[in-house]
């Protein structure tokens, strides 16, 4: 918001911010001499999407929490702030980012940033129950391809003034501009959590999950792999206890459960370790996003099912066309999540009108295509 008279906000403050000023200058210069820029936060997701091109534009100078009001359920944070730093500040007040973005943190580094989290738009185990990244974006400040600093949305839950540009940035892979600051909705950490396990085949697990989802139960996350369904309940203690009594299954030790969900969230658990090895050996890790009720996909490879059935990870050497066809037949799409060979294209092709709108939108925000060119779809 930049009416010019908004308290303690925008133009005056931000223009005076040396880190932002430096970025503006770099974008101006890049635009003037036709340089392409590769927006960089923590550098933890360079493997995701199409290959980065251009000169790195380091945004980690935009660091720090600008405002955090626990009773407003809103935090405003600069994009280069490490995700770990934001999550620690929220945890101190008993709050969290409910969509559990993967952190990809390495031991020797600060890990991913808030800007990278929004740009990649990836969410963790609780996604189906609580919503994804874009559902929690309330506002954003963007440095566009004309080197203009613009703010959209705001710091309030209900806001229908103008187009919702802030939410469009979630998953945009930096192709619309540099995310400088975001306001996010946050929620209290659930009072109670219990994890259950069931030994069932995939088809039965899908049937159980979809049936339970239609009932007033505090389901929060699920994962099926190798004949085991793991289910997390979260909410009021009374509701969780009642659900445990009703659903049966075996209660998983709390510490073990935490470690399991963290590993799944950060993609460091056994399945993903196996996937990394398979990828090194020439296979691919696919992320299939399908309707929750889709039947088990007939792909004879290693599968991990999350999000109540809506996200299915596949380690496979099958041709890309076959994987994409299976996802499309189920009503969804497949992303070539990790692979040494990205020639089939990372993201599933768009329909003609959507491809045209997307291209024109990118031009509307970044006329010279300075930022992250080709990161979503390869460009000639």
């Amino acid at each position, binding site marked *: *918001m930049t*009416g*010019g*008279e*908004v308290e303690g*906000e925008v133009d005056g403050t931000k223009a005076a911010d040396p880190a932002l000023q430096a970025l503006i200058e770099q974008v101006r210069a890049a635009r003037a001499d036709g340089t392409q820029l590769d927006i960089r936060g923590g550098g933890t997701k360079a493997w995701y999407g199409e290959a980065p091109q251009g000169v790195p534009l380091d945004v980690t100078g935009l660091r720090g929490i600008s405002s955090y009001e626990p*009773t*407003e359920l*809103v935090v405003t944070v600069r994009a280069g702030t490490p995700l770990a730093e934001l999550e620690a500040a929220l945890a101190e007040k008993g709050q969290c980012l409910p969509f559990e973005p993967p952190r990809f943190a390495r031991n020797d580094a600060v890990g991913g940033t808030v800007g990278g989290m929004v740009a990649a*738009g990836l969410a963790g185990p609780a996604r189906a129950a609580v919503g*994804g990244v874009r*559902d929690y974006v309330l506002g954003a400040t963007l440095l*566009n391809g004309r080197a203009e600093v*613009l*703010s959209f949305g*705001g*710091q*309030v*839950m*209900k*806001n*229908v*003034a*103008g*187009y*919702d*540009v802030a*939410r*469009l940035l*979630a998953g*945009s892979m930096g192709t619309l501009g540099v995310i400088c600051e975001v306001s996010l909705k946050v929620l*209290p*950490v659930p009072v109670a959590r219990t994890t259950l396990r069931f030994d069932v085949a995939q088809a039965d697990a899908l049937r159980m999950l*979809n049936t339970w*989802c*239609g009932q*007033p139960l505090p389901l929060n996350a699920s994962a099926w792999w190798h004949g085991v369904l793991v289910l997390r309940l979260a909410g*009021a203690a*009374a509701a969780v206890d*009642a659900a445990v009594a009703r659903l049966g299954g075996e209660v998983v030790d709390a510490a073990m459960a935490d470690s399991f969900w963290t590993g799944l969230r950060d993609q460091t658990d056994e399945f993903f370790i196996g996937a990394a090895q398979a990828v090194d050996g020439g296979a691919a890790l696919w992320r299939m*996003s399908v*309707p*929750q009720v889709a039947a088990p996909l007939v792909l004879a490879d290693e599968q991990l099912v999350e999000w109540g059935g*809506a*996200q299915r990870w596949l380690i496979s050497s099958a041709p890309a066309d076959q994987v994409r066809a299976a996802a499309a037949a189920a*009503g*969804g*799409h497949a992303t070539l999540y990790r692979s040494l060979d990205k020639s089939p294209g990372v*993201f599933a092709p768009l329909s*003609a*009108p*959507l*491809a045209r*709108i997307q291209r*024109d*939108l*990118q*031009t*509307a*925000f970044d006329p010279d295509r300075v930022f992250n060119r080709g990161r979503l779809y390869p460009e000639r």
Partner: protein
Amino acid sequence: MNAPLPAAALDRAARQREIVAALAPVVPAHALLWQAEDTVPYECDGLTAYRQQPLVVVLPETEGQVAAVLKACHALKVPVVARGAGTGLSGGALPHALGVTLSLAKFNKILKVDAYSRTATVQCGVRNLAISEAAAPHGLYYAPDPSSQIACTIGGNVAENSGGVHCLKYGLTLHNVLRVRGFTVEGEAVEFGSLALDTPGLDLLPVVVGSEGMLAVTTEVTVKLVPKPQLARCIMASFDDIRKAGDAVAAVIAAGIIPAGLEMMDKPMTAAVEDFVHAGYDLEAQAILLCESDGTPEEVAEEIGRMLDVLAGAGATRMEVSKDEAQRLKFWSGRKNAFPASGRISPDYMCMDSTIPRKRLADILLAIAEMERKYQLRCANVFHAGDGNLHPLILFDANDPDQLHRCELFGADILETSVRLGGTVTGEHGVGVEKLNSMCVQFAPGEREQMFALKAAFDPAGLLNPGKVIPTLQRCAEYGRMHVSKGLLPFPQLERF
């Protein structure tokens, strides 16, 4: 101005003949209206102060006809204004003087309610409440509940990103819609979102939802259905000071509780509604909070207990918990009838819709009290306190031009004060034509230009609902000199907000 009007110089009647000739071959004769007496009912939406007869009204019955109408209009460069039930409060469906109003009233079928996948696929003209009614036998419902839900349609909800009294816990329209099917301005079929939880490429769904008919024409929507809570109970709490009530709202959230509903009424509003519904409200209270919990019986018992502790700690002077569903609905009846009740104590009223950070609640109330003195008009206040969305109702008599004028200044003052307090000019009613000037205050020129560029990516010729939502530079420059009249609500008996 906002709309390119290549035909502006053409004679209106000639233009009308041209459009009728182009549309007659693609829709049945009864679906095409252009005689003045037939198009009069379409001259305004819920914001009746703005009226404009369209050149032509077309009521297609199939998607094929929608596509053909759009193609024909695009070829002639005719502005197209899509229209649902016409209950919108910001003039979003106000016709264009040289345009076609595309009524989607015939798209009123529920195509599929699927209990297993918890989704409903419906045509855009299906009423919001009809979806929940169709889902009820499965123990499911559609969560967003704008108070006009018996009349407003899902297509209109998508256009406005409608809220309701339960969105703090259950989200807005955007959070409850999976897929929007529609047509581009060129008449090409397009789908945003899908039955999966995400789609490849840029996520256009959040831009299309809430775009007020400026980017595409919606014909079909797939919504999420959620299990109906087994039980809901509501606490009615009184406070002797409005600031204490505001602090109580913050205290509930700080305690880690997300109530199913959290609403506030001030003393003048409480008096007005008590007289109307006789719900037993505390007439001595400076503010009344309605705080609702829903879920399993165990969950509700636990949460109500915690809420009572927090509210007592925050200085509630009186608290009552609904004993049964009848009493719960009675607690809500006053809140839901704030509009008709206001209609009984004043000849006219104007409803505002800004949002502020919750912590500024007392500040805006004090500012509004000051404005009452300044503009010599009374104002009663209801709030979606949980999410900071306020609906001040300015009471006036439209037959007195000076009162109307003061009311308009009062309203603009509230919106601009809300922006200064870190909020927004519209929380759920949309910009339409009503709040175009206020958009000049909220957004800088570069931001408005970026929004125009976004629209052009969907609609290069600027033919879909032109002139709404984003004010031109020229208009913002003129703001301050211009006189903008505000609207009165039709259907005053309808529950709203």
